[in-house]
């Protein structure tokens, strides 16, 4: 029983604290590492503590919720580690002190189920966006030609989710790289990510992977080209570093001191197996478990650029997949092993080649079910593949794809749904590869066609639309259309859908177990 005098004092304090919380709203707020028994709330600005409870009502009681003081982390962020959580349970949280008015019904998440089973609602519901960071992408004239497009893709997903998925909450919010154009600066992350998806990331943990734009680039003053004073026209040149070292990050602004990519400061990723998976020792690649799903994020940009680091990542992946016993295994990385996107032909781009040659065999040997990438600004979805490590012209469907009764590559839809344990081999040895890099823009079909050398018949790799654009023979479907991916993993099936800006499902496939 609490003395009245203390209660009144608390009420005064809490009234002030709530007022303080309202006045100091954070500029960004997201969930990280939501596991079975713990979660991280990460934010910038606002109060210095986070409280949580199993219900909104409990959150509103002054001394009921658990609270923890924030830890300051890199990039002027704050983190609160919520512990002693029950598995597969909803938790409401608020920044600042608890008490009347402290709760926000939008700030709620669900912990992962205990061990290898789907959540109580029967389904791990995953939303993925690739190359979505176009809200802050400016052109040489300083304009933002893709403003609003990522939001359109989001609305398409939300419309689909309401109409076709019963408004099911997202369990995992997965990013496929290039989520903040052009240079992956902190300000671009704010504008292209935190300001676009606040209502997603305050309910579901964010699981990213490193894209090339996460590694910055450089501004180049081309004013003199037009006889203009310096600074009149500044355009982006440089792309990502070819180094494997994150400290080579360059935001292109000589006035700033670059100390690594903001990506590594913004996200708190599990390097020590904090959410399941095998410890990697680095946030550049990691894995996690959520119910019956094992998610692996590989580093196609940095570790992939150095042979030694790439091999170390590969050895970690083997150890991780060897130890994995979840129903479904999903791998994400930015650079697609199979793509005929503009400027990102997987027959030509070294990072894509290395991932295809050195990692796809590991996926197939160790039971990976699906792989998602971005980079190419289009949608491309493969057949159920095994053993195709060469260039596109070496693809043989009879050898490299699961076939249907007619001897054609099975589509994964309807009565051609894939079986996790392949009927042909009797093993879980095939993977569907998806490129979903059109969540913020898509390559234009009006891009001028590449000239064909009259002697060699060859076409340039860049700067034009090749005749084999979006025609990789390993793909079932390819389209240059904006959208995002929704994955639903239940105890018996994994269903992957590509949803456009109108909420229409343009492609889907199912793997059954």
């Amino acid at each position: 029983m609490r003395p009245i005098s203390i209660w009144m004092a608390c009420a005064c304090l809490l009234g002030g604290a709530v007022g303080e919380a309202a006045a100091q709203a954070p500029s960004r707020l997201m969930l990280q590492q939501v596991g079975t028994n713990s979660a991280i709330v990460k934010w910038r600005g606002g109060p210095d503590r986070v409280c949580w409870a199993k219900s909104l009502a409990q959150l509103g009681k002054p001394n009921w919720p658990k609270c923890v003081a924030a830890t300051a982390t890199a990039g002027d962020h704050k983190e609160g580690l919520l512990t002693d959580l029950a598995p597969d349970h909803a938790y409401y949280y608020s920044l600042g002190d608890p008490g009347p008015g402290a709760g926000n019904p939008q700030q709620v998440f669900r912990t992962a189920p205990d061990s290898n089973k789907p959540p109580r609602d029967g389904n791990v519901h995953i939303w993925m966006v690739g190359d979505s960071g176009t809200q802050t992408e400016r052109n040489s004239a300083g304009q933002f030609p893709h403003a609003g497009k990522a939001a359109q893709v989001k609305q398409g997903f939300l419309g689909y989710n309401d109409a076709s998925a019963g408004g099911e909450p997202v369990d995992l919010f997965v990013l496929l790289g290039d989520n903040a154009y052009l240079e992956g600066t902190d300000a671009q992350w704010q504008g292209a990510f935190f300001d676009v998806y606040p209502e997603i990331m305050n309910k579901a943990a964010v699981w990213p992977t490193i894209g090339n734009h996460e590694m910055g680039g450089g501004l180049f003053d081309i004013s003199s080209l037009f006889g203009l004073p310096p600074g009149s026209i500044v355009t982006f040149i440089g792309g990502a570093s070819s180094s494997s070292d994150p400290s080579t990050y360059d935001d292109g602004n000589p006035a700033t001191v670059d100390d690594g990519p903001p990506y590594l400061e913004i996200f708190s990723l599990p390097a020590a197996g904090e959410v399941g998976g095998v410890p990697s020792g680095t946030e550049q690649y990691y894995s996690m478990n959520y119910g019956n799903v094992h998610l692996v994020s590989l580093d196609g940009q940095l570790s992939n650029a150095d042979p030694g680091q790439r091999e170390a990542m590969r050895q970690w992946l083997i150890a991780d997949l060897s130890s994995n016993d979840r129903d479904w295994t999903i791998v994400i990385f930015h650079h697609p092993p199979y793509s005929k996107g503009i400027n990102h032909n997987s027959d030509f781009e070294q990072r894509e080649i290395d991932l295809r040659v050195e990692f796809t065999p590991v996926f197939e040997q160790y039971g990976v079910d699906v792989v998602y990438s971005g980079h190419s600004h289009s949608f491309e979805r493969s057949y159920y593949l095994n053993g195709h490590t060469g260039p596109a012209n070496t693809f043989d469907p009879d050898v490299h794809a699961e076939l249907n009764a007619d001897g054609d590559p099975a589509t994964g839809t309807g009565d051609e749904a894939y079986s996790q344990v392949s009927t042909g081999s009797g093993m879980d040895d095939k993977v569907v590869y998806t490129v979903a890099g059109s969540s913020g823009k898509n390559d234009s079909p009006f891009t001028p066609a590449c000239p064909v050398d009259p002697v060699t018949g060859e076409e340039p790799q860049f700067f034009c639309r090749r005749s084999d654009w979006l025609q990789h023979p390993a793909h079932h479907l390819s389209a240059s259309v904006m959208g995002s991916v929704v994955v639903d993993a239940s105890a018996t099936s994994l269903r992957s859908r590509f949803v456009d800006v109108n909420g229409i499902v343009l492609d889907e496939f199912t793997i059954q177990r």
Partner: protein
Amino acid sequence: MARVTSIVALLLLSALSPFAVRAHPSDAEQIAILTQRIETDPDDAQLYVARGAAYSHARLYEPALADFRKAERLGDPVLVAYELAAYHERRGEVAEAKIHVARFLARFGGHPAALELQARVLTALGERQAAVASLEKLIAVQGRPNPGSYVSLAKLLASPGGAGIPKALAALDAGMARLGVIPQLQRVAIDLELERGNAAGALARLESLGPALGEGPEWKVEKCELLIRMNRPDEARELLGLASSQLAGLRATPARLVLAERIKRVEAQLAAAPEG
């Protein structure tokens, strides 16, 4: 007026290159824009360095080298040296790469990308001690060292002519002290322990990985193999039984099929081993 000229410039840029306003530049886009810039500013050495790097990255080696040579004539040759080293490395010309990266590092000693390039070319040239020094310096300057750097360092130290296995193990242990006990490093350490005949050390290291690997069937089988080496067959038999049971409960993958065959081989070894 400024706005009009900007619009005109934008139109000109668009006319010159349909992709000029694209914000996902490729090597070709860089080359195109830099070429236009060089036409108006032909004495800017850094333009040639940048274009040469783009040519080099796109494996267009002749124009790359021409640009680097031009840049050297126009400006400070040291500023060209890193990209020139990278150019030679891409072409497999490691001796030349070594010369150029050394020149660059003589001025910019803590440049991580140059240090990692130097380590690679020195390794390729068989200059292990020097490569070790580069990697050690790279690790020291990295705020977030990559596990692969420690693996590369350990392999160099342990290679013939290197400082030896104890030094290699020390490097790996230093890496794990910083990054945690992770399989990328500990597995290399296990192999090194076995190479020097220290099965007990290998077993201890494998056991340290148990929690991280969930003590899965593959881990168990590997432990069985070590126990057999250490003449502890009874423990191995018990563990192998557990591994088999565990494996039987998992769906078949090619890797698990290989593991099943490995279990059979271990069973055969144990069958030949005396009881007790």
